[in-house]
């Protein structure tokens, strides 16, 4: 970040940019960790490698967003301190990404929901006038488009596949649908920056998400669920019980041996 950019940011804008970078970093860190749990358990070798690659992409992207968040905050926290030394209630990831892997259909439905959201968000974020964030968004978008393509192709094959694969994919879509409102409504930081004109408003992204997701699910011979009991609160640090277990595994080495290097 150049000095000039730092000076030109109003404190309130800076605070919201910090929140936004943190939220994207947390989403990608948690999703990347979830995907890494597949390592060695993939349905076959090629898919095991694909999931591992996507997991690594997510972790790399998380590192970029969290490092920027640390700079914006200006309290000396690095990507590592943010990842390893915060507790559950300090994480601002959405509920969707912390949900367990389940079967392969569940993992792919989760990926499809999130990657479509992320790619739409990043398309707008890469044009953001705050260039450090725009730069990371542009780099992340390239990888996300590939992840989305991968998840979409699986959705089409499993949804429009055998009776069992369709049953499982529909069950995954139905189960995870309650976590999608949180994505489309956007966080307080997203709404603020949307009003400032720095990024597209959550509403614009939500409409596009709904339209494209309906197209994909329809093509995959799947029903678009209708849910009323939508789950929210991840962006304010309210999480499901799943996150604590995940963080225990993610953070134990760094917390047991602070500052360890290898």
């Amino acid at each position, binding site marked *: 970040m150049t000095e000039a950019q730092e000076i030109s940011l109003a404190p309130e804008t800076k605070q919201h940019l910090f929140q936004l970078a943190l939220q994207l970093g947390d989403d990608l860190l948690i999703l990347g960790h979830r995907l890494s749990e597949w390592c060695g358990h993939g349905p*076959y*070798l*090629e*898919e095991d*490698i*694909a999931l591992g*690659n996507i997991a690594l992409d997510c972790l790399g992207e998380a590192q970029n967003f969290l490092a920027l968040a640390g700079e914006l905050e200006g309290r000396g926290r690095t990507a590592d301190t943010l990842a390893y030394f915060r507790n559950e209630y300090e994480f601002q990831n959405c509920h969707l990404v912390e949900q367990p892997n389940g079967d392969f259909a569940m993992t792919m439905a989760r990926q499809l929901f999130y990657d479509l959201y992320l790619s739409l968000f990043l398309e707008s974020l890469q044009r953001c006038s705050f260039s450090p964030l725009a730069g990371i968004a542009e780099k992340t978008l390239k990888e996300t488009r*590939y992840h989305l*393509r*991968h998840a979409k*192709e699986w959705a089409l*094959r499993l949804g429009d596949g055998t009776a069992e694969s369709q049953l499982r994919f529909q069950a995954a879509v139905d189960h995870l649908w309650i976590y999608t409102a949180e994505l489309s409504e956007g966080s307080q930081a997203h709404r603020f920056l949307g009003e400032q004109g720095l990024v597209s408003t959550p509403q614009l992204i939500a409409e596009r998400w709904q339209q494209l997701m309906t197209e994909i699910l329809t093509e995959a011979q799947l029903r678009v669920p209708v849910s009323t009991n939508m789950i929210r609160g991840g962006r304010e640090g309210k999480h499901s019980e799943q996150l604590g277990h995940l963080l225990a595994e993610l953070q134990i080495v760094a917390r047991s041996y602070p500052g360890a290097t290898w």
Partner: protein
Amino acid sequence: MAEISNERPDNQLLLWEVFVQEGTGEAHGHAGNVHASDAEMALQSARDVYARRGDVTSIWVVPSAAITATTPDDVAPFFGPAADKIYRHPQFYKIPRDVKFQ
């Protein structure tokens, strides 16, 4: 009594050969193979397995079943005759003194 088959069904989908081009204008070289249900999934797997590192500019995937190959029995009739006809090799001929080459 029913026949007991020793054949194990291959439940790993279809086999595809992967050819990778490293640089525009270069020939596609055989990289290996992947299992996939169809061409699009084969391309994605090939990308993940063979093209994540290095400068790959293009990938081809071909169903392994589409390849016709020689068998070990073909070796003598196909490749043998060349060895005893040394005049077929360019090295057999001396280059005339006035011919320049680089």
